[in-house]
C-alpha cells in the first residue's frame, strides 16, 4: 500500500464526487476511475482485491467498497469519511424526491414517468445480467442453478433465506474442487463474481 497519507478532506470529497455522479448503480467503474486512474491511490491489484472482499461480504458492494478503500487509505476514520461521502448526496437527493413523490403519488403524470424509468432500469439490469452471465454461465449445470433459483423465488415464492439454505449446500457440493476430470476446464470451482 502506498505510504503517503491521503488527506482526509480529499478522501471525503473524492467519495462525495463518486456518490454524487454515479447514476443507475454499477459504481465499480466510477470507483475504479477515481481511485485507480485519476488519483492513483490504489493500483489495479489492490483495487481488485478490495472489490473481491466487498462482493463477498453481505451488504451493498459500493458502500462496502467505500469502507474498505477508506480504511486502506486512512484507517477507520478514513472509512467513515468515505462512507459518508459515498452515501450523503444520494440520501439527500432521494429524501427530496421521496417527499415530493409521497405528496404527488396519485398524480398520473408522475406515476407514468416513474413507470418509464422502471422499464428502462429493468432493461439495464437485464443488460448487466447478460454481460456477467456470458462469462459465468458456460455449463449446463450453471444454467440449471439459474433456472432453479428463478423457479424457487419467482414461481414458488419461497423466501430468499430458505432458497439460499437449500441451494448453497448443493452448489458447494456440485462445484467442489475436483482432480482434473477429463474434458472439463481446469478451473473447476466457483469463480468469484466478475464485474
Amino acid at each position: 500500500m502506498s505510504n503517503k497519507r491521503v488527506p482526509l478532506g480529499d478522501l471525503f470529497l473524492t467519495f462525495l464526487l463518486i456518490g454524487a455522479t454515479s447514476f443507475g448503480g454499477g459504481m465499480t467503474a466510477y470507483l475504479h476511475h477515481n481511485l485507480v486512474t485519476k488519483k492513483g491511490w490504489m493500483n489495479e491489484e489492490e483495487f481488485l482485491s478490495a472489490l473481491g472482499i466487498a462482493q463477498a461480504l453481505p451488504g451493498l458492494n459500493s458502500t462496502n467498497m467505500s469502507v474498505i478503500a477508506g480504511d486502506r487509505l486512512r484507517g477507520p476514520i478514513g472509512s467513515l469519511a468515505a462512507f459518508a461521502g459515498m452515501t450523503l448526496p444520494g440520501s439527500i437527493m432521494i429524501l427530496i424526491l421521496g417527499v415530493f413523490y409521497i405528496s404527488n403519488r396519485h398524480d398520473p403524470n408522475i406515476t407514468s414517468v416513474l413507470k418509464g424509468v422502471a422499464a428502462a432500469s429493468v432493461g439495464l439490469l437485464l443488460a448487466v445480467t447478460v454481460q456477467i452471465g456470458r462469462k459465468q454461465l458456460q455449463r449446463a449445470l450453471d444454467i440449471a442453478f439459474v433456472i432453479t433459483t428463478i423457479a424457487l423465488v419467482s414461481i414458488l415464492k419461497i423466501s430468499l433465506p430458505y432458497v439460499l439454505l437449500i441451494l448453497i449446500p448443493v452448489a458447494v457440493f456440485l462445484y467442489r474442487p475436483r482432480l482434473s476430470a477429463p474434458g472439463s476446464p481446469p478451473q473447476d470451482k466457483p469463480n468469484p463474481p466478475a464485474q
Partner: protein
Amino acid sequence: MNQNNWSILGVFSLLSVLAIGGGTAVLPEMRMATVDTHHWLTNDQFRDIYSLGQLAPGPNTLMVIVIVIMWPGIRGLCSLSPDSSFPPV
C-alpha cells in the same frame, strides 16, 4: 420504538445480511417483504420507489429511505397494526 418499527428494522437488517453480491440480489425479497408480507406498500408504489432510487445518484438501494418515510402514511391507510402511537420515523 413500537412493534412496527422493530419489524422495519428486522426486515431491512435481514435484507442487508442477505445482500451478498449487491443490493439488486435482494430486490425480489424486498418486494415480497414490503408488499406481500407486511403490506407497507402496493406493488405499484414499490415500482415507483424503485424508479426514484434509479433517478438519484449513489447506491440504488437508498430507495429504502423512501419506503421508511412513506410507511406511517401507508400504515394509517391499511390500519394493519393494532397500536396507534408511533414516533416519527
